[in-house]
């Protein structure tokens, strides 16, 4: 097929989408809604995995001292740690070190942490002799005066990994269902369009247009519907997420909770890529499906 014909077919597909603008817009909205739902799940999982990996990369047990502990109290804490026979060894993490680690985790949002240096706690990375005794060690350590909390990651990791696993399964199923719905919507839109234009299609056959010459504009129409839907979905999700993550990340730094929402630019490209890929595939497949069934050319 020559380029001039390709241009002609793209133009025809575009003009035809516009001719049934209401129907096209209805289909566009459904595709957009579907992709937005998909996007929400995608972001949930992306964030979940990011934070899970952070948790995984952290030492197994960390004991946090209360903030503003004086030298004498710190010494007392360390004594207690030494006395505990279940502990193999421990490493002290200074306030500065802890602060640096947090900054690394927050990446470009590190400036949210400004002014928090003084509120960093001293912490101890605890290595337990026998891992099965981890729970007991945690309880014992929490009783020590001067220790505000003990994080025992393995528990959390196990739970989160299970949750992550199920989230992925449910998302995968939901996504497939949603995509099938999208394809069916587009297929139906094209079917109606073909039916509405059956006289014209017949005329084109008698003038000597080849089957593909007649088919292509419909496929273009299906692709346009899903691409426009994808772009709208992207705009909504991107804007909504950037507002949300900006807000939550600044709240998080105030409560010194170890949880971080990926910034929008880290995920934007991935989401756009996935959307467009899905968009084109769903659009083309949906149209082709319908043409095969309803277009007798």
């Amino acid at each position, binding site marked *: *097929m020559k380029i001039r014909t390709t241009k*002609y077919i793209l133009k025809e597909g575009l003009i035809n989408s516009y*001719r049934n603008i209401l129907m096209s817009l209805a289909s566009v909205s459904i595709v957009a809604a579907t992709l937005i739902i998909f996007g929400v799940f995608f972001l949930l999982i992306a964030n979940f995995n990011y934070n899970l990996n952070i948790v995984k990369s952290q030492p197994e047990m960390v004991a946090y001292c209360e903030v503003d502990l004086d030298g004498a109290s710190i010494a007392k804490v360390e004594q207690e740690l030494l006395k505990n026979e279940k502990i193999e060894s421990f490493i002290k993490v200074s306030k500065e070190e802890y602060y640096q680690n947090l900054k690394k985790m927050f990446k470009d949002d590190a400036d949210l942490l400004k002014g928090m240096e003084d509120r960093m706690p001293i912490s101890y990375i605890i290595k337990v002799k026998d891992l099965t005794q981890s729970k007991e060690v945690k309880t014992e350590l929490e009783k020590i005066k001067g220790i505000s909390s003990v994080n025992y990651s393995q528990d959390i990791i196990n739970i989160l990994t299970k949750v992550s696993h199920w989230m992925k399964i449910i998302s995968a199923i939901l996504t497939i269902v949603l995509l099938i719905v999208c394809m069916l919507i587009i297929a139906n839109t094209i079917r109606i369009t073909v039916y509405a234009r059956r006289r*014209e299609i017949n005329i*084109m056959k*008698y003038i*000597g247009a080849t089957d593909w*010459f007649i088919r292509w504009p419909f496929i273009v129409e299906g692709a346009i519907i899903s691409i426009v839907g994808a772009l709208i979905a992207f705009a909504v999700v991107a804007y909504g997420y950037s507002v949300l993550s900006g807000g939550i990340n600044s709240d998080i730094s105030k409560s010194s909770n170890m949880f971080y929402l990926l910034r929008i630019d880290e995920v934007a490209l991935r989401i756009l890529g996935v959307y467009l890929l899905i968009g084109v595939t769903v659009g083309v497949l949906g149209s082709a499906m319908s043409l095969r069934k309803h277009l007798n050319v």
Partner: protein
Amino acid sequence: MIKFKNVTKRYDNGTVALKNVDISIEKGEFVFIIGASGSGKSTFMKLTMREEVATKGEIYVNGYQLSAMSRKNVPYLRRSIGIVFQDFRLLPEKTVYENVAFAMRITEAQSKDIKRQVPTVLTLVGLNKKANMYPRQLSGGEQQRVALARALVNKPALLIADEPTGNLDPDTSWEIMKLLEEINQRGTTVVVATHDKSIVDRMKKRVIELDNGVVLRDQEKGLYEDENKNY
């Protein structure tokens, strides 16, 4: 140009529309195919366009052998023939110009050729001033002329017209027929299926009369009614 060799057409419902028909139309001829409804007239046209396939026999149109032709080659046959229908069959959402140009676009013709040829053929049928109008804004006669222009734009060797004046008044019908005659003078073979008695009688061209699926009469300079028939 058109050759029917012992052609029989039996439809799925059992009707035999053509029985062992032999017809031969040479290049440059002007032929009327006449006959009552059910005579096989429309079947003849449909077979020529390959809208239907013969049950038995061989059909040759413009060098193409129709029975051996695969489905995907049919468009190429149709492009080499200009076809005009009784109900005009213009694309309603395209202008006059675009309707005629469409016939060239499907052959992937170059823009410059389209820009040259379409106005030429529109002038031939006298509609170059209405190039930007839509079919619904034209009279029946004008629409048929657009259809004629579209049929001619790819310079086909053969033009077939299935009841081209069926929806038109007598004066407009005559204008269309004059155009067809002019086209024939320029070398295009023209085959017209019709039951318009007055036109056939006025033009005195070769007449092939079909009746109940057989060729009743094949006469040069014929009239609608067989002059030699005794009633």
